[in-house]
């Protein structure tokens, strides 16, 4: 079930964004795009990313590099304003070359579970993408225990079937317990 090197629009958008973020901090791609880049056939408008909490000085540098590469934040141009959203645990969205879609939705790490997700991040060769993802067990646990929409439950089914060798029920159950403690 190997992937190929050919890119779709969403893949290329993700690579371009991640290459810039990688130079500034640790990050993970989470949720829908993990399933979609692993072959799930469904639509999406955005890619979700969690990044380490940065000082405003460091965030300014990251934002400037993103702007330089053709990205624009859809909420605001003023970096202090964008940073205030992130500090308030609100996500901010970037688009590229003024195309309304796709969007990269980023937020800062906000609790121990997010930190754990970054510590246990992985690369997924099947996707053909050299970017960091939160683990398969983490994504399954979030989709089954926290997000729970029909779309998310089907994403979890897809991940379970595409990556049986990575699925660890004991770990998924432990993550679900942490989700109940920290998120619900």
């Amino acid at each position, binding site marked *: *079930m*190997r*992937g*190929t090197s*050919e*890119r*779709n*629009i*969403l*893949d290329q958008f993700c690579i371009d964004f991640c290459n810039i973020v990688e130079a500034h901090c640790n990050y993970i791609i989470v949720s829908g795009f993990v399933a*979609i880049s692993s*072959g*799930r*056939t469904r*639509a999406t408008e955005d890619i979700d990313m969690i990044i380490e909490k940065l000082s405003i000085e460091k965030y300014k540098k990251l934002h400037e590099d993103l702007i330089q590469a053709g990205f*624009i*934040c*859809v*909420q*605001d*141009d003023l970096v202090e304003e964008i940073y205030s959203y992130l500090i308030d645990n609100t996500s901010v969205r970037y*688009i590229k*070359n*003024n*195309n*309304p*879609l*796709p969007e990269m939705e980023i937020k800062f790490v906000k609790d121990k579970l997010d930190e754990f997700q970054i510590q246990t991040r992985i690369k997924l060769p099947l996707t*053909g993408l050299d970017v960091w993802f939160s683990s398969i067990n983490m994504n399954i646990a979030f989709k089954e225990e926290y997000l729970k929409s029909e779309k998310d439950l*089907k994403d979890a*089914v*897809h991940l379970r*079937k*595409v990556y049986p060798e990575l699925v660890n029920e004991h770990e998924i159950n432990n993550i679900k317990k942490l989700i109940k403690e920290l998120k619900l």
Partner: protein
Amino acid sequence: MNEEIDRWIKYMKENPNTWREIHNKFIDAQFIKAHEFAQKILKESNGKEKLMKIYNIKNKNAFSVLHNP
């Protein structure tokens, strides 16, 4: 409930060299359509404002390139 997932994963496993091309076309189609839609809306009067509402864009500098290609 998940028959379509099973069917597609079976195809992925049986066609490791071709599934990605089909998948890429599927993923690209929505963005190509969205871009065509945006171009059409931008030609309307107040098109930029309309597009900003549709996509919940607050930054007034967004769509400057699309607006003046």
